């Protein structure tokens, strides 16, 4: 390929570069210091779609949702100052969950940087801890290669958010546009690839000798596209798989070796298996405190293998016996051929007992007058045949979604895990709708969380995003109420939350809205929503005082779960 040479403005170069990165959609909100970029968009509108959001936080979550659903880099844009600072929550969310997004901010002209000019914020400074990397482009000649590097850094290695801050004079400056075609060279950036031969043979020794092994599958499994390999490893060695919240979808829900989610609100069998295992094979996960409970009592009898692309995660929270800093996809290819076919009959039997006990306690078996959140999720699963992409928000709604929507495939469960960002769900689902065209997209969100980013309903209608929004209305900031119930003597301080009439809100935004308070109405209402091409809101009025079980209180041993009392002997929990 020859070099392209043309005299272009910084704003034009910006769009040229985005198009070369394959960007088809960008979520943004204009302002004084991005005006040149917006003006130049008129020349590129046939190639890139700009989605006007209602808030810059929404734009970042949309880019994030798009990225998680598609595996591509999501892009968001904001003006300087308040526009840029509104992005911080979205950047932090993407950083914690290793989501590849590129955020562009306008900046005051270079000659006034540092003078507290109107709408000036040191955004590269402010976002230092919540970005994988960032650029302040102070010379138009650096623009093209900075954008190129930003996309490369965002999507490779352990993915993450990258910010590009572009002063207005750089957007207006002109230069000969030479799109760099040489390989990107970053002398300090070399994501690791392979495990050493020694590591492979040690791992195999440990795996083949284990009697009670468990695979821990994290977000890294989805990011590295290794769900099939994890399944192969599990089936070959008869090794059960427990997933993190973000690892859901690593193995089909109904797979006999699937233990389900582990951790604070994990399945009992998953936590018991971890605690009793003699080998943990941790794949692309980071032993978050929500996953391990009390460090000193965590899986005390096991040897541990930890495979992660980020060296910082190894031996950070949990000391392991074999740390492999490499690309999971490559390591699994190196390891699987040497794994011996095993039965683990005793171990499998033990796990079946735990599962049986958990099933007996299941809330779904309980007859109730009012709707229970778990029933709603179970019906949504039934009504979508388990095939939808479900984007959840944060709180009880998120945990019951994770527990009761059986996800069978990677990238069908999207949620803010590491940061737990309320308000993520709706905008992330709008972003998802630009990536996913062949599946239903459902949002599961609380009455609190929806009100954090409710303004994006306008974006959903404007774009006719085909999303179905299920508000689980329990009248409370439910998860906080649950902690008050369990640890603060049921003093519900500032957790009852007033909400508008959500059906009327839907109508006001000119989208269909329904309210459901009976279990038999769930499926028929879903059918109406599914028949409508575009956003639909359904409010599910559920039990106010329901509790998410099991629960490992923060910092407690993983096996000391607070369990749901046996059904049907428990009449009322509160």
């Amino acid at each position, binding site marked *: 390929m020859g070099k392209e040479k043309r005299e272009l403005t910084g704003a034009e170069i910006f769009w040229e570069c985005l198009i070369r990165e394959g960007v088809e959609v960008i979520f943004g909100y204009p302002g004084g210091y991005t005006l040149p970029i917006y003006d130049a968009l008129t020349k590129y509108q046939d190639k890139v779609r700009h989605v006007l959001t209602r808030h810059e936080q929404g734009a970042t979550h949309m880019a994030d949702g798009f990225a998680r659903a598609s595996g591509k880099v999501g892009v968001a844009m904001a003006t300087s100052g308040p526009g840029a600072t509104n992005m911080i929550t979205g950047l932090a969310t993407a950083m914690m969950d290793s989501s590849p997004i590129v955020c562009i901010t306008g900046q005051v002209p270079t000659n006034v940087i540092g003078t507290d000019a109107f709408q000036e914020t040191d955004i*590269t*400074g402010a976002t*230092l*801890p919540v970005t*994988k*990397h960032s650029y*302040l482009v102070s010379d138009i000649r650096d623009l093209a290669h900075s954008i190129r590097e930003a996309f490369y*850094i965002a999507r490779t290695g352990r993915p993450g958010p990258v910010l590009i801050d572009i002063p207005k004079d750089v957007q207006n400056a002109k230069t000969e546009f030479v799109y760099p075609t040489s390989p990107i*060279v*970053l*002398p*300090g*950036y*070399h994501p*690791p*690839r*392979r*495990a*050493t031969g*020694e*590591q492979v043979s040690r791992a195999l020794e440990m795996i083949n000798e284990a009697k009670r092994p468990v695979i821990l599958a994290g977000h890294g499994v989805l990011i590295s596209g290794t769900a099939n390999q994890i399944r192969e490893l599990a089936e070959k060695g008869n090794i059960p798989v427990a997933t993190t919240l973000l690892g859901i979808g690593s193995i089909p829900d109904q797979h006999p070796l699937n233990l389900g989610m582990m951790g604070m609100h994990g399945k009992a069998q998953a936590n018991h298996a971890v605690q009793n295992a003699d080998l943990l094979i941790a794949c692309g996960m980071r032993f978050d405190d929500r996953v391990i409970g009390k460090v000193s009592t965590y899986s005390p009898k096991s040897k541990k293998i930890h495979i992660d692309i*980020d*060296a*910082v995660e*190894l*031996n*950070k929270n949990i*000391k392991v016996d074999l*740390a*492999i*800093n*490499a690309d999971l996809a490559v390591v699994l290819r190196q390891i699987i051929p040497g794994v011996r076919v095993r039965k683990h009959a005793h171990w499998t039997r033990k796990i079946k007992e735990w599962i049986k006990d958990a099933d007996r306690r299941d809330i779904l078996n309980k007859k109730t007058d009012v709707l229970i959140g778990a029933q709603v999720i179970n019906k949504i699963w039934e009504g979508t045949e388990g095939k939808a992409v479900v984007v959840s928000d944060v709180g009880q709604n998120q945990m019951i979604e994770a527990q009761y929507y059986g996800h069978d495939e990677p990238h069908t469960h999207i949620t803010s895990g590491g940061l737990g960002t309320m308000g993520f769900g709706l905008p992330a689902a709008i972003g998802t709708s630009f990536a996913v065209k062949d599946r239903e997209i459902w949002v599961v969100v609380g009455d609190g969380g929806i009100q954090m980013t409710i303004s994006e309903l306008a974006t959903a209608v404007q774009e006719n995003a085909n999303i179905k929004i299920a508000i689980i209305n329990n009248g409370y900031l439910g998860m906080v109420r649950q902690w008050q119930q369990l640890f603060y003597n049921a003093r519900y301080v500032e957790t009852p939350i007033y909400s508008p009439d959500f059906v009327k809100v839907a109508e006001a935004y000119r989208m269909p809205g329904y309210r459901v308070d009976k279990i038999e109405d769930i499926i028929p209402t879903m059918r109406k929503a599914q028949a409508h091409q575009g956003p639909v809101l359904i409010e599910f009025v559920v039990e106010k005082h329901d509790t998410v079980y099991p629960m490992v209180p923060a910092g407690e041993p993983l096996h000391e779960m607070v369990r749901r009392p046996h059904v049907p002997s428990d009449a009322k929990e509160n």
Partner: protein
Amino acid sequence: MQHTIIALVEDKPGVLNRIVSLFRRRNYNIKSLAVGPCETPGVSRLTIVTDENDSIRQNLVCNNLLKLINVIEVEDVTNVPTVIRENVLIKVQVNAQNREELKNIAKERNARIVDEGERSMILEVTESVGKIQATIDVLRPYGILEIVRSGKIAITRGDDRPEIKNGVAGRGTESSRATEQVNNYLY
């Protein structure tokens, strides 16, 4: 326990800020930090002294540093044969009676007199940290007016250049490749 880390970083705006910010945000303490150009143009060399007792956390310091995009190589040289020096300028009070005495002390202690005033003189000492401290202690009774220290700088003994021993296996080769690349990249 104090650890000495050598880091090679790209000489670009904001890189030092990224490094210092990392230490603050991960709650690591910096005892001293010295920065300057090295043998490769476009690359700065840092010597960082930390006081991190926990060896796991110390390892994380290095891996966290290496994770920064602009950081090319990191080596913890605490347990490696290393020449460590610090440069110190000491302004000490002097009078007609003790001027000769101080000059002798300077000579004995390998300190250069870089400025002589009527009532003070400036001594320059470049030594290992222990010897510097001893010199300061000897000078203290005369009345020290000012001390400025460069922070420690370190270089490993022997024929090798820094190689990453701290990162997880596989990094070593990656890192030598990084050095090659930086050489190609910068010229």
